[in-house]
């Protein structure tokens, strides 16, 4: 597709429950990125993939967050045992290759942890 697709649009979880978010990058794009937008509009980089391989996970909280990009499947970001501070909008972005510059963003998934 020509747009990055993210599902669901909204997700509500009780504290301690699992949350799973999905992202379909633009067809032909090799890199996928996950960002977290929290209060005061701060964007935090979480993780990036080159095809199905983790490229950079320096922003990923290791204990409860995991992510995958498997062939022929949407990429996913999973949070085990959600906490209140995980409430945020999670954006997925993609770009074509390492020499591409601009990233194209999906509409985001708003996660609310209650």
């Amino acid at each position: 597709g020509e747009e990055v697709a993210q599902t669901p649009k909204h997700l509500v979880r009780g504290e301690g429950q699992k949350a799973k978010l999905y992202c379909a990058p633009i067809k032909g794009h090799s890199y996928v990125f996950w960002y977290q937008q929290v209060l005061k509009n701060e964007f935090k980089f979480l993780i990036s993939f080159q095809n199905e391989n983790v490229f950079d996970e320096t922003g990923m909280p290791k204990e409860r967050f995991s992510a995958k990009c498997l062939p022929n499947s949407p990429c996913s970001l999973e949070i085990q045992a959600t906490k209140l501070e995980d409430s945020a909008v999670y954006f997925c972005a993609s770009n074509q290759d390492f020499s591409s510059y601009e990233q194209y963003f999906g509409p985001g998934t708003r996660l609310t942890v209650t």
Partner: protein
Amino acid sequence: AQSVAQPEDQVNVAEGNPLTVKCTYSVSGNPYLFWYVQYPNRGLQFLLKYITGDNLVKGSYGFEAEFNKSQTSFHLKKPSALVSDSALYFCAARGYQTGANNLFFGTGTRLTVIP
């Protein structure tokens, strides 16, 4: 540490007047710089980028930005603001030498164009 700063949380401008949204950066090596716009409940839309070459770059919807290496700035401009330009604007950068390709963002500037 690499960073992007947007010194103004809010910018108000009258419709038809020129607008400027400010951005300064601190990155290793030659910077790759970007502007994105976010409308309510929407993702980020790419407006323009500076990679190399002319310091004045033109982008979507009549926006342009001026790269100033000595001042480490990349201000977004438009000669004549429209009410529909009202949105949240983010400046972003990607470091050149780090080997990473993720973006890091400023905290955003809310632009309000007053009819």
